[in-house]
């Protein structure tokens, strides 16, 4: 969807509220995008509901009054499209890939993915049920490494907490998370990361109370303006 990026203040002026359900990992970027959108479209107001993608999917399927859903994983988006709550084809607005995260100074001396097989090192991974865990599995399969994790966390932030506190020597997380964690965490890139790129889909809801603004917001996220905000946070954009 490259062409749609041209929507802005001019031609079709949109007004009203738009309610966006977005994955918690998008809190920072989408808050920025929301402010920018409101500035670009006076008379609009963006309300966010940040939460876990799966919880948001549940809420939407139970009739939550939303206009837009931005998920951190295609699987959660599928839960919503399956029930017909979303009829549009979801569009990918960002991509993310994995990085090795180690505590500041790399006390466990992790050099690369191979060290994840070492049982002496404390390793944290995401659980396979969540997107980063699924991605990690693909990476290890591609690298033909049997990882020896000590914990399978429920989300990336939990993994990152353990890295930043030095509880684990190494972990696999998204690039954007390493970036957001600042100087407490160091990132190490590795070749196999390209084998497991996670897509972030966005779509407006079939029964969106304010379909026009919803569409405008989706377009805004996919616009150049939107992309620059996303890439500043470390996302790859499609």
């Amino acid at each position, binding site marked *: 969807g490259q062409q749609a990026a041209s929507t802005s203040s001019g031609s079709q002026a949109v007004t009203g509220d738009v309610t966006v*359900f977005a994955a*918690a*990992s998008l*809190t*920072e970027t989408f808050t920025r995008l929301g402010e920018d959108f409101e500035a670009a479209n006076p008379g609009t107001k963006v*309300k*966010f*509901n*940040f*939460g876990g993608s799966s*919880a948001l999917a*549940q*809420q939407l399927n*139970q*009739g*939550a*009054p939303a206009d837009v859903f931005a998920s951190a994983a295609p699987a959660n988006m599928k839960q919503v499209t399956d029930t017909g709550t979303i009829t549009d084809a979801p569009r990918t607005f960002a991509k993310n890939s994995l990085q090795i995260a180690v505590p500041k100074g790399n006390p466990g001396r992790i050099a690369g993915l191979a060290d994840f097989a070492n049982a002496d090192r404390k390793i944290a991974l995401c659980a396979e049920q969540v997107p980063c865990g699924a991605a990690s599995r693909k990476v290890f399969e591609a690298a033909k490494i049997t990882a020896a994790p000590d914990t399978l966390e429920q989300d990336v*932030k939990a993994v*990152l*907490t353990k890295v*930043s506190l030095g509880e684990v020597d190494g972990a696999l997380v998204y690039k954007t998370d390493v970036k*957001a964690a600042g100087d407490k965490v160091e990132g190490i890139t590795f070749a196999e990361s390209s084998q497991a790129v996670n897509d972030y889909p966005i779509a407006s809801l079939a029964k969106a109370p304010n379909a026009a603004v919803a569409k405008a917001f989706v377009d805004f996220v996919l616009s150049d303006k939107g992309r620059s905000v996303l890439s500043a946070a470390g996302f790859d954009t499609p």
Partner: protein
Amino acid sequence: MTRNRVRGRLPAVLVLPALAGLAFLLVPLAGLVIKTPWTSLPTLLGAEVGEALRLSLICASLATVLCLFLGIPLAWLLARSGLPGRGFLRALVTVPLVLPPVVGGVALLLILGRRGLIGQHLDAWFGISLPFTTAGVVVAEAFVAMPFLVISVEGALRAADPRYEEAAATLGASKWLTFRRVTLPSVLPGVVAGAVLCWARALGEFGATITFAGNFPGETTTMPLAVYLALETDPDAAIVLSIVLLLVSVGVLAGLRDRWISGPT
């Protein structure tokens, strides 16, 4: 004249585990406080945090009131009515405790959501929709916190001497009057304990709230939800926010309690 009133040493066998218990609860908090980058506090304490804090206090208090209204009679029913199958009912009452809060939120959505069993009628007939509203936060918190109240009060009722209720009956007091004027005052410490647990639990509620009521600033974003979002962006800020919540809670509880808590003297 000051007299030396040493009432015998406190028994070490009680004091040592008590202090260990206290340390177990408080040292991690001390850890939090020490590691917190307090310098970031002023920048954090913007209008949004104030808003979230206000919302948290209001919702937790309303949820506690709701729990008191429904929970005390329920505790009485379980403790005094001689209903058959009370043991089983009592066990069922603890269920919202065991239920992972997120699942609790899902359960509430299934019933009270716009497409829920009851919620759809509420919506259709009265235009009331609880999810994603402040009222929804109160409902979610009350659902999660009520078992604490019920179980505490029931324990207190069971320990109370029923002969005082008999004495009230011989004075012509109906069951309701007896409950209100005799039973309840005599279990007041238990009720206060239950209400404190209930309030604190509601104040810290996260999973059921975010699932049932969503996370809309100013409407449903309570402090724990703000903390959750802060964790996504700035873990240090999250800790500072938690500590703010704690301080407020400790302040409220420390201020409130000694006036209400003591038994008859």
